[in-house]
């Protein structure tokens, strides 16, 4: 009888632990969505709504679509965004990348950009990723101040090279994407 109680208690405890962890995971998920995802969704809806309804969208579409629907155009876009002067400015919160991404998305939906360009476009709008955050990121890795001094320009210059390379790789990797139908 005593052994049975102990067993039941063990089962109860471990099940409780698992359920508790899952429940906490759900709570964390809801909090993440409320804090980080929904506010940005509302913000981007407002921006996209105004852009589309006011006609600015057509202007942007005319300038952005030709750039985003050829390999050369995407590489040009990458090089511009990866410029060491611009990249730290375009980085924060990836806001610019997210807005341009959503605009490109609506152009894909309208048929102005072929769907297979979605993959290289994902890299073309994002060679500046983290360029605003290099000192903080290095500090999180407990880097010495001398390392930060060298590291910031090193990463920025590296992006000038690896940004276009990434877009080119993505372009070649997009062969066969959405072309079957």
């Amino acid at each position: 009888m005593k052994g049975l109680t102990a067993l039941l208690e063990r089962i109860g405890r471990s099940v409780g632990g698992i359920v508790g962890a899952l429940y906490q995971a759900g709570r964390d998920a809801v909090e993440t969505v409320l804090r980080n995802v929904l506010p940005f969704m509302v913000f981007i809806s407002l921006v996209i709504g105004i852009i589309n309804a006011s006609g600015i969208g057509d202007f942007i579409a005319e300038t952005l679509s030709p750039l985003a629907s050829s390999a050369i155009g995407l590489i040009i876009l990458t090089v511009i965004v990866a410029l060491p002067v611009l990249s730290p400015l375009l980085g924060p919160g990836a806001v610019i990348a997210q807005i341009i991404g959503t605009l490109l998305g609506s152009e894909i939906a309208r048929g102005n950009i072929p769907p297979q360009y979605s993959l290289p476009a994902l890299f073309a709008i994002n060679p500046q990723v983290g360029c605003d955050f290099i000192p903080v990121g290095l500090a999180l890795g407990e880097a010495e101040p001398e390392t930060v001094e060298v590291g910031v320009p090193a990463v920025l210059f590296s992006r000038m090279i690896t940004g276009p390379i990434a877009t080119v790789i993505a372009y070649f990797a997009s062969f066969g994407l959405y072309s079957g139908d």
Partner: protein
Amino acid sequence: MDALARLAESFIGLFQEGADFFVALLTGIIPLLLVLLTFVNALIRFIGPERIDRFAVFAARPGIAFLPLRYLVLPVLAVFFLTNPMAYTMGRFLPERYKPAFYDSAVSFVHPPLGIFPHVNPGELFVYAGIAAGLTRLDLPLGDLAIRYLLVGLVVILIRGIVTEAITAIMMGRRTGAGSSEETTEGARA
């Protein structure tokens, strides 16, 4: 009066367009995101993120053979388990000369998994979801794009790590040798 009414209507219309877009995002993205986030959060809780500390010590060893460990496996594990921005703390296990390259590699991986593992960076989901939303409206499946984004991302972070490590080495060498005034041109040439 008529003109005023029309003005009011077009004013509201400006935001109605945004509201429609919001509803499409809300129903299209949030339910799956919530369930997926819950699953991955629980998974990370069961595995325990402290386990990759040991791996980081192992991956920090010098040598060309460890390049894929440093700039591929370690950033992937760090980003998956610790997510943005805590993933960069893994840099503390690396020697100084590898830290910028590791950061470059890790930070470049906070978007490519978003199609499959949005938990790594839910606040910047729209880098991927913005473009993906366009494909959804064309009734195209997203799986192919999501997996290719992830795979190309893996190749790119390895390249970034190697290139940035080389540039860092050159710049650190020059710094100890000559003055720091020439740095800009040297870095650009590299």
